[in-house]
């Protein structure tokens, strides 16, 4: 019997101990955060910039942060310039073909940068492979010609100082013809220009 009493006493003592300890854990997390906050040094602007630039243990997050900040500033400046100086927000696109003319044709623009060229022409099935001359009036090396074409599929190549060149970056596709490339444009219709 005595041993049973002793057990009960011990059990009661332990319960009391646990209850007291649990009370001590109340708000432990908040207290730790508060204390850490009290101990954290106040950063000045210079310290903040240094921390931003410096590499951290987890990599180059600091430097990336600087890059990101710079990019954000550039974007803001760009947006400001675009809205205040009349720049279009969309990327500039080369208009390859105009709306339909009254006769059902479209003015199709052929453009070729050829800085050192003396003569540039375009040949294709729209002109029976006879050269149509491109012009470079402002002599900036960008040669252009606008040719009215009815809807259809047109194979062509540029002739630069007598040399054929069939890979127009503005083409819709390329075909092999007699061992060389020809460019292709689709005017009007489904997937065409």
């Amino acid at each position, binding site marked *: 019997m005595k041993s049973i009493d002793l057990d009960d006493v011990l059990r009661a003592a332990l319960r009391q101990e646990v209850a007291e300890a649990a009370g001590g854990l109340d708000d432990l997390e908040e207290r730790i955060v508060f204390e850490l906050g009290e101990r954290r040094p106040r950063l000045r602007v210079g310290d903040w910039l240094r921390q931003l630039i410096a590499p951290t243990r987890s990599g180059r997050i600091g430097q990336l942060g600087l890059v990101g900040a710079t990019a954000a500033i550039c974007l803001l400046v760009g947006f400001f310039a675009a809205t205040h100086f009349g720049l279009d927000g969309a990327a500039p696109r080369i208009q390859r073909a105009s709306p339909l003319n009254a006769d059902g044709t479209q003015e199709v623009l052929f453009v070729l940068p050829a800085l050192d060229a003396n003569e540039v022409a375009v*040949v294709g*099935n729209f002109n*029976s*492979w*006879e050269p149509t001359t491109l012009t470079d009036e402002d002599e900036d090396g960008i040669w252009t010609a606008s040719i009215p074409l009815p*809807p*259809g*599929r047109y*194979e062509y190549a540029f002739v630069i100082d007598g040399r*054929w060149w069939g890979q127009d970056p503005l083409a*819709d*596709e390329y*075909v*092999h*013809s*007699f*061992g*060389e490339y*020809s460019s292709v444009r*689709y*005017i*009007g*219709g*489904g*997937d*065409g220009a």
Partner: protein
Amino acid sequence: MSTRRTECLATFLALMLGLTLTAHADIPLIDFEAALAAVPVSDVGRAIAAIEVGTGQQDFPSFEMMQYLQRLATTAYSESERESLLVDVFAALEEGLPIDGLITKGLEGLARGVPAVSIHQSLHQRRILLAETRDLLYAKGIFSVAPGSPQSVDTALPTPRFNLLVTHISDTIADSLEGGGSPFEGQMLLQEVRFRLTSLSGAILNPADVELVLKRLEPADLTRVALSAVS
């Protein structure tokens, strides 16, 4: 007064008749005859007959044909080489095939100054492909009817519309083969045909025709057509 009115009417009718004839036959056969003599062609009679068959078609490219003959006559090729570049064109005309693709390919070859044999091979392959493509469409139940004729079924297309389909399908296969494509890649050929037809749908091809053809074509059909041109 009555005589004067009759004279005016006769003049007006003659003028209208002249305009009608000019509009129908863009280039008189006699001009073609002169151009053929300049190439020269050994059998002018047969060549003229073939051209006459062509001029009967609404979509015959008279001016391009004349340009081809005139440029051929001024090339440095031998006489037999020049004539070889007309053989497949005349054969196509005799078979009632559309020749736009052949003429433009011939003109391109002349402009590029490639050897006559390369042009001849290309034209020959393309003529076979034109014939095989037309037969394929026939086999698929798609036919051509003379323009203005009553269209009894949806698959009977006016000849110019039918010919455009034949031209673009066969040209696509020819371009693929000339570019090193394999005739056994039927799926690839079908993709290329689909791209070209849908790109031209609504522009020069009737969307309903494009839909009809694409619904009926299978990769194996195009492989069969392509193989006929390389075997």
